[in-house]
């Protein structure tokens, strides 16, 4: 079918992305070999010379020649970046200087030994991380790598050669490399070079290395490196063909589910899964089913699972933890729900004979019930995996012997009670007493003690209550059945009770985590202000992780800053700030407990929202705390995700608010032009008309007419003054060039000033003032609030019949003061109440009225700038009411009834 051959859009997209990424990113070229001594560095330097000859800016960042003359000769003529001197435990180490390289920013940088582990105190723990940063900075990197350093091949190499390599590089580095040049040398020639002393071997490892460089090993390593390169080429071919649509390569995508348990084999199973996934080019997921019984394990045992999950993530898998009681059931339902075609499990390391006898092993059950899903069993022998053992040796489970003693005591108590009851009750009732003892032991002391009490119970029952008494002998053989049933019931009860308790414990732990998250997200959802959000985030993270936290937000220039720096000095430290900034720019966690910039005091997580990074969450654990385990890390990441989304929401809201203000400003400007042309032209026409008739025909005008013209000029000029004042106020308020100069003051003063200014206009009116004596002081900009009052009063004076009273009143309310300007005029037309505060709506509803224009809009802007509201309504008994509120935020300054005594008078 035609469609099948059409290029897969996603594949094309992926290729374009890869192309694009590589255009802004630097290109990585790896000189890849089977073992030391095959000539990788040599080949790399030769390539560097070629590029240099082409005129490319090539710089050597770091090369180790091991004193080989041929290699050293090649270094000549290449610009070399000075190395960084690091003092570690008295030794001076030479390290690659990442910052110098980033600052120099050559086109191509040569960095030897990709698998190298950096000296403590370097920014990244590993050199491949340095290289990643270089690539991101757009620098092309040439580097070298041996096959035994590849993470997923690590244990294969160990198996073949018997030498465990600890410095590994994630497979993804090799896979995403733009070029891999295989440097190959037949084993015989390599051995010859070795004999000639051309291969550098560190003295301390001479014997191990001698073992390593055996022909068999070398052949195997060579095969591995060749296969590895071939796989890569094959993958490239697949990508190419897929994009070209030449062939539909995979009818269905394979999906592999790798199941791990908290045992030393976890890491090995993950690596095996990875190899399989790679060969099949399948998606893969690593699953850990957390079972109630795992709670009883020590932290070190659980750390195995954690380690496996972490490795899975590093190798590019999705790592998932679910909890459930029946691992088989959980794994299968998970696999079915998500369409996994293959399941990889480890061979059990230990044999739980009891369990397997009755229910079959996990692997057996899985195989039996997996249906059409293939199950792969990989060997999970723990012995060879000592290298992968967690840093904390698993402590022997501390056996609490007192539990057993208590269980025995319980059985003794049961026997006493049963003894008392024996005279009046049947034997079957006595059994019940013992079963009760088992239940008590199971709930209080756990599995072991409850099993002991079950066995002791049966024995005691036999000894005391089954004839012949006080012996274990049994006269009537039907009692044997009784014992067996009793034992079975007791064991079942004990198992069920213990399991129930364990499940409750797992549930409680989950509950706690979910609860912490839930309460954070709930609080964030109900919080609107940025500062309150940050406070909530900090509080929740500090509660859950015991440490000091800080939220740093990026400013417009991308620099991070706290909004409440005073609270935590560690954020002020320039070294810490630099780490935070790095984390923000790279959107990767770093700092304490990670492999990047591990020397930092705190752990820094990027806060990445849906539209990009918004800031950084810093957590400085209490000094004696251990680094977070994967579980905690995941939880913290989830916290960070929640926080990032919430913060992004708040920032977007702020941005939206700003752009709304900007749009409003734009509307204002347009309306302003229209209004200015009208409001300025009308009085101007009158003034210039009157003035011209005075100027050119004064002697012909009778005195009353002249007076009339002069008055016209005066009145129209006043009108223009008012307009100009309002325009000026509006302009300044809109452009925010006026910062509010708020001071706490009595309203009375502002009232007085406004009435004073309108003395003339209000001369023929009764002005009723209602100011309660106990009115609190209000934080206002008196100049601006006076404008509000003047505009409202002027408005009232202008639009109500002369002689009608005007009332000015103020009253304190809940957290605010309300001011009313009331008149007895004709009131407002329906619908006009809210519209009159909009800019320049004057005239539409009341054509005869002049100049509402800007006055009320200015009043609104000022009131809103103070955080208050303004509105108008009709009074029920006639007239209009203009009301506004002013919030009473903060505390008025201390105002002693009698301020400091003045200096003595003159």
């Amino acid at each position, binding site marked *: 079918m035609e469609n099948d051959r059409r290029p897969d859009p996603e594949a094309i997209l992926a290729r374009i992305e890869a192309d694009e990424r590589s255009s802004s990113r630097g290109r990585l070229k790896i000189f890849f070999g089977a073992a030391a001594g095959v000539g990788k560095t040599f080949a790399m330097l030769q390539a560097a010379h070629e590029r240099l000859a082409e005129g490319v800016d090539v710089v050597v960042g770091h090369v180790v020649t091991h004193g080989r003359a041929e290699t050293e000769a090649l270094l000549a003529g290449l610009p070399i970046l000075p190395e960084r001197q690091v003092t570690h435990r008295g030794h001076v180490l030479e390290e690659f200087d990442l910052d110098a390289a980033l600052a120099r920013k050559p086109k191509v940088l040569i960095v030897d030994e990709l698998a190298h582990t950096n000296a403590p105190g370097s920014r990244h723990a590993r050199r491949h991380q340095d290289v990643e940063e270089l690539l991101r900075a757009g620098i092309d990197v040439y580097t070298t790598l041996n096959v035994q350093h590849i993470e997923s091949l690590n244990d294969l190499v160990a198996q073949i050669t018997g030498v465990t390599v600890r410095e590994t590089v994630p497979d993804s580095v090799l896979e995403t490399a733009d070029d891999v040049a295989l440097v190959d040398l037949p084993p015989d020639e390599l051995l010859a070079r070795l004999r000639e002393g051309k291969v550098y071997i560190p003295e301390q490892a001479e014997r191990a290395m001698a073992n390593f460089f055996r022909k068999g090993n070398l052949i195997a390593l060579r095969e591995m490196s060749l296969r590895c390169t071939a796989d890569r080429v094959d993958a490239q071919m697949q990508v190419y063909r897929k994009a070209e649509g030449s062939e539909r390569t995979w009818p269905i995508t394979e999906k592999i589910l790798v199941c791990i348990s908290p045992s030393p084999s976890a890491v090995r199973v993950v690596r095996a899964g990875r190899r399989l996934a790679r060969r099949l080019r399948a998606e893969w997921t690593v699953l850990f089913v957390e079972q109630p019984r795992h709670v009883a394990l020590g932290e070190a045992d659980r750390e195995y699972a954690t380690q496996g999950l972490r490795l899975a993530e590093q190798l590019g898998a999705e790592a998932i933890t679910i909890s459930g009681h029946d691992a088989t059931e959980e794994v299968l339902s998970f696999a079915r729900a998500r369409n996994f075609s293959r399941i990889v499990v480890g061979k059990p390391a230990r044999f739980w004979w009891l369990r397997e006898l009755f229910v079959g092993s996990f692997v057996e059950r899985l195989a039996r019930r997996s249906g059409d899903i293939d199950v792969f069993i990989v060997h999970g022998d723990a012995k060879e995996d000592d290298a992968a053992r967690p840093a904390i040796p698993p402590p022997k489970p501390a056996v609490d012997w007192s539990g057993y003693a208590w269980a025995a005591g319980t059985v003794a108590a049961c026997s006493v009670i049963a003894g008392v009851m024996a005279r009046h009750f049947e034997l079957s009732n006595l059994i019940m007493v013992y079963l009760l003892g088992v239940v008590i032991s199971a709930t209080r002391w756990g599995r072991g003690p409850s099993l002991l009490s079950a066995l002791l119970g049966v024995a005691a029952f036999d000894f005391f209550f089954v004839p012949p008494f006080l012996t274990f002998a049994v006269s009537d053989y039907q009692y044997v059945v009784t014992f067996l049933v009793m034992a079975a019931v007791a064991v079942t009860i004990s198992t069920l009770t213990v399991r129930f308790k364990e499940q409750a414990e797992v549930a409680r732990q989950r509950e706690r985590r979910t609860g912490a998250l839930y309460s954070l997200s709930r609080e964030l959802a109900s919080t609107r202000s940025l500062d309150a959000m940050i406070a909530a985030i900090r509080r929740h993270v500090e509660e859950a992780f015991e440490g000091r936290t800080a939220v740093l937000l990026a400013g417009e220039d991308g620099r991070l800053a706290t909004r409440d720096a005073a609270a935590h000095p560690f954020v002020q430290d320039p070294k810490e700030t630099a780490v935070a900034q790095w984390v923000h720019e790279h959107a990767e966690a770093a700092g304490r407990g990670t492999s990047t910039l591990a020397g930092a005091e705190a752990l820094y997580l990027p806060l990445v929202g849906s539209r990009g990074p918004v800031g950084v969450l810093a957590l400085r654990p209490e000094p004696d705390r251990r680094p977070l385990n994967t579980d905690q890390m995941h939880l913290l990441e989830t916290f960070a995700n929640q926080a990032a989304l919430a913060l992004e929401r708040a920032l977007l809201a702020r941005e939206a608010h700003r752009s709304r203000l900007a749009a409003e400003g734009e509307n204002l400007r347009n309306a302003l032009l229209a209004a200015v042309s009208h409001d300025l032209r009308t009085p101007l026409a009158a003034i210039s008309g009157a003035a011209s008739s005075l100027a050119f025909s004064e002697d012909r005008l009778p005195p009353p007419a002249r007076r009339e013209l002069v008055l016209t000029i005066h009145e129209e000029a006043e009108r223009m003054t008012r307009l100009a004042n309002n325009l000026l106020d509006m302009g300044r308020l809109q452009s925010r060039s006026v910062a509010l100069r708020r001071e706490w003051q*009595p309203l009375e003063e502002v009232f007085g000033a406004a009435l004073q200014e309108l003395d003339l206009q209000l001369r023929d009116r009764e002005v009723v003032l209602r100011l309660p004596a106990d009115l609190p002081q209000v934080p206002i900009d008196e100049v601006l609030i006076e404008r509000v009052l003047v505009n409202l009063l002027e408005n009232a004076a202008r639009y109500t019949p002369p002689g009608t009273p005007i009332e000015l009143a103020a009253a304190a309310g809940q957290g605010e003061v309300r001011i009313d300007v009331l008149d007895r005029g004709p009131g407002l037309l329906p619908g006009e109440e809210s519209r009159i505060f909009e800019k320049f709506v004057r005239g539409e509803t009341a054509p005869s009225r002049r100049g509402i224009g800007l006055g009320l809009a200015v009043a609104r802007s000022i009131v809103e700038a103070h955080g208050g509201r303004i509105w108008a309504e009709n009074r029920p008994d006639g007239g209009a009411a203009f009301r506004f509120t002013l919030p009473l935020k903060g505390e008025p300054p201390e105002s002693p009834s009698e301020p400091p005594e*003045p200096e003595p008078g003159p």
Partner: protein
Amino acid sequence: MSDVAPTVLLIEDDPQIRRFLRATLPAHGFRLIEAEAGERGLVEAATRNPEVVLLDLGLPDIDGLEVTRRLREWSAVPIVVLSARGLERDKVAALDAGADDYLTKPFGVEELLARLRVALRHASRAGGDVPGPVFAAGGLEVDLAARRVRTAGQEVHLTPTEFRLLAVLVKHAGKVVTQRQLLVEVWGPGAAGNAHYLRVQMHGLRHKLEKTPARPRYLITEPGVGYRLREEG
């Protein structure tokens, strides 16, 4: 007011304002000297010995504040500054630098004449004419010597601070007094920033002296600038 027409020096760059005052002031018994820039104004002030200076704050060469400062280095001539509304800070700066009063543009003739008269009266007092010990305006009487205050014939009891505040305003009666000036004169230089002292005291004073404190007859607030004791009740 003196018998001969008092001389007014107008330092203003806007020709229309100069034209308007040139037509108006002589009609009200003033002699007018004009200067269109700050430097020129300083020269005129030194050579023509005006009795009052009308100074625009926005001048093309040196700003009005600078003119005020330089004038005050050698002259006590009353200065009335002219400035647009909304520039309260400039006004306060000029007043604190030694200007005597201000007028907001645009202004009416009556307002201008009232300011000029107050300025001239204060200048003549400073020239040795001691103000009467009793200030009276409308129903308000303040006897500075006896430290007695009456409104509408009723004696009013003031706290020492209130009295002192009132005394400063009486001393400058009719002129605007900036918040800073009041604070410094009443509480001393250390109190210049504590505007709320002033508000509290002014509130108390108004409630004792004014019939309607929110619509004062005597103690007028000039928003953003300071206070003025009105003389004509």
